[in-house]
């Protein structure tokens, strides 16, 4: 029974690696039309929006935690803080609120 999980994990590894690897190795960029290239350039910013919403509202049963964490991260990022500081400050803000409320 336990042994079978290893095969599940290997299967997961294969189907995860193929989409990561294939376009990067197979695409010949000079043959790709400018419009498609433009679309591909847009992908990072669009995907950021989709990854943040609605996940940030639903990751905890209490939506306020996500909203407060998001506001903290936004302020830190707007002030030009590094990624490390942004992550630490938002975890800290939620922990503090948790301690105050309990």
């Amino acid at each position, binding site marked *: 029974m336990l042994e079978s999980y290893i095969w599940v994990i290997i299967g997961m590894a294969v189907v995860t690696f193929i989409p990561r690897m294939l376009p990067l190795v197979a695409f010949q960029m000079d043959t790709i039309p400018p419009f498609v290239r433009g679309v591909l350039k847009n992908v990072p*910013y669009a995907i950021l929006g989709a990854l943040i919403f609605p996940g940030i509202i639903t990751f905890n049963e209490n939506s306020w935690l996500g909203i407060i964490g998001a506001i903290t991260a936004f302020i830190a990022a707007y002030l030009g803080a590094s990624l490390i500081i942004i*992550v630490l400050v938002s975890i800290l803000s939620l922990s503090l609120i948790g301690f105050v409320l309990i």
Partner: protein
Amino acid sequence: MNTVLAGRLSSSLLSQGLKSGIGIAIGYMPVAFTFGLLAKSSGLSLFETVSMSVLVFAGASQYIALTLIAAGIGALEIITTTFIVNIRHLLMSASISEKAEADPKWLKALYSFFITDETFLVAATRNEKIQAAYMLGIGIIVYGSWVVFSGVGYLIGAGLPTILQESMGIALYAIFIGLLVPSAKTSKKVIMLAAIAAVINSILTFASTMSTGWTIILSTLIASIVIEMLWKGEHQNA
């Protein structure tokens, strides 16, 4: 070892990548830690837990796999779900290929293993081309953090205060916000892209039965295509 290859894998680029990766590595700690903790309660062994992080290296799908394993779901369904959740990497890989330096294919295949939402975004929101050494630098530190803290979470996770455990759920979102805000400050196009994708993804999530993997892909594609049609002729500063 030829000099061309040595040039591609320059150590200064590697250390730049390592530096860029530190923020993500820290953000991954709590997420990996929690994964290890949950893996233990789902009945996986330490070996299986760490193997999953070593071989799969994809947070969301690893969490989902735990839920399915705990529910006694079959192997085929777990693997299929993993594929659907991770198919968005196709888009990221294609987007990287648009920005990638002309490195040999085996080198691209190697660093493509390190493509995650976060590593992709850090590399893609930089102004420079994407070089193999830089991606390997980010990959090594972030992957190391993911694997090590999966194991640490498995071993000592249950001892952590609940408040801290719950607060850590914010880490990945903090990374996303931290990456979006600097670009959004200088570009209306970035704001529009993120806003449209966010709205469409929220609508699809609440009003359809599509899985998260598909809603993210669909909303990203729609936003990227619509904005590209509206913003024609302004290709330079995306």
